């Protein structure tokens, strides 16, 4: 029972909007980082969070640079605290970006198709940031050039493609959308039907469930559920 209360506290804290902006940025960033590492699919690029955090990092670095050299032990101590915080922020951003790159490298063609869909439909949050898009396309063209010069170039023309879907095997690898994830409910979702099993679960605020990703993807993207 005690555990349950703890979680309720945390959720209540998140819901109240009077937390200072700094704390909220950190919370958002941490949530993005956790979600990106756990969700089997690529999540939309949270440009506002990243922009805010990068701005903070830049200001902190400036502050550190300004104040080093001061001999006052008090400032020195403060600087150490600031720098420690800075290292942690950097770690989160780094982990977040690397998690995304890893997914890009694992399923490039699938993600590229998804990204094109999202940017065509005029979505405000495209799947990839511009530099990630550039990384993906450049890496992909490097790889295909490499394959081509190594062996594909000598293949019969009908077999040279890398995104062939004929012949019973789809060459475009997809992430496992049915992988299990832990989710915590932030808002009442109600009955959630799990496709293919015929069963449904009633998800209430504060609940923690293990479900397949494809069943909860919509609510995670909307922010009603969070992966943990």
């Amino acid at each position, binding site marked *: 029972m005690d555990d349950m209360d703890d979680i309720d506290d945390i959720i209540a804290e998140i819901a109240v909007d009077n937390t200072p902006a700094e704390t909220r940025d950190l919370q958002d960033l941490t949530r993005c980082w956790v979600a990106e590492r756990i969700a089997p699919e690529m999540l939309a690029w949270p440009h506002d969070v990243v922009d805010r955090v*990068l701005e903070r*990092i*830049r200001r902190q*670095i400036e502050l*550190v640079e300004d104040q*080093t*050299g001061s001999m006052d032990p008090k400032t020195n101590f403060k600087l*150490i605290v600031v*720098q*420690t915080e800075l*290292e*942690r922020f*950097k*770690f989160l*951003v*780094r*982990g977040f*970006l*690397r998690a995304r790159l890893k997914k890009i*490298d694992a399923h490039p063609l699938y993600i590229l198709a998804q990204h094109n869909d999202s940017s065509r439909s005029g979505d405000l949050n495209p799947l990839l940031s511009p*530099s990630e898009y*550039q*990384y993906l396309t*450049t*890496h992909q063209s*490097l*790889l295909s*050039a*490499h*394959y081509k*010069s*190594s*062996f*594909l170039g*000598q*293949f*019969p023309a009908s*077999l040279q493609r890398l995104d062939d879907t004929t*012949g019973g*095997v789809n060459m475009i690898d997809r992430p496992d959308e049915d992988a299990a994830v832990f989710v915590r409910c932030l808002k009442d979702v109600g009955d959630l039907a799990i496709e293919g099993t015929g069963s449904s679960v009633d998800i209430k605020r504060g609940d923690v469930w293990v479900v397949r990703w494809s069943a909860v993807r919509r609510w995670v993207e909307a922010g009603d559920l969070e992966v943990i």
Partner: protein
Amino acid sequence: MYGETGFKLVQAAKREQALAHLPPYQTELVRATTREVRDLDKDVASILEPFAGSFNPSSEPAVACGLLTNHLCMRRNKRCLLAYHRTRTDKLDEMCWGGIDVLERQQQQVNRAGGGEGGAMGGEGGSNSNGSSLSPEEEEYVRQYSDLLAAYKGQWTDVDLTGSLEPPKDLFIDVRVLKDAGEIQTEYGAITLTKNSQFYVRQGDVERLIQQGYLQRLS
């Protein structure tokens, strides 16, 4: 036998996954597999030739079956080749991320093999003439991938993307110098890193040097 060289390639790929270094590129196997695909394609063409474009699979089940086998073998060989090359490029990517200069290391290997055993060269050179374990195509790939990586990292200068993925616990750490690394600049002045000396430094300042093996972290 059909597919045998492809199978060997996949076995090699599987083995490479567990190794820390990159074994020599299987030029011969790759060539043999590619040749097999071309031969099979020629077979298909010659089987289809007498039908002059009006082949009906249901009237000639035996021929259709032969064609199917050829097709599947070609596709399988393609998958094997792709798997082999992908495993290797993944490994190369990983090395680039780890800050290992792959090309330089290859160069060193070549030099060692060439310079060290001057007299015994003749007998050794059979398997791999230039001593490098990368194919020329792979070397080109590594060069371009490092450029790509540098370009992407350049947009995140404040964060240092190749840094450690372990959560930072302490701002300052104890390190021991394993190899002379010259002088480095920190906010607290310059430090000269001479072999076997020990320092208490900011982790962010020496991260790269630890990765490159100049320093060892003391816990």
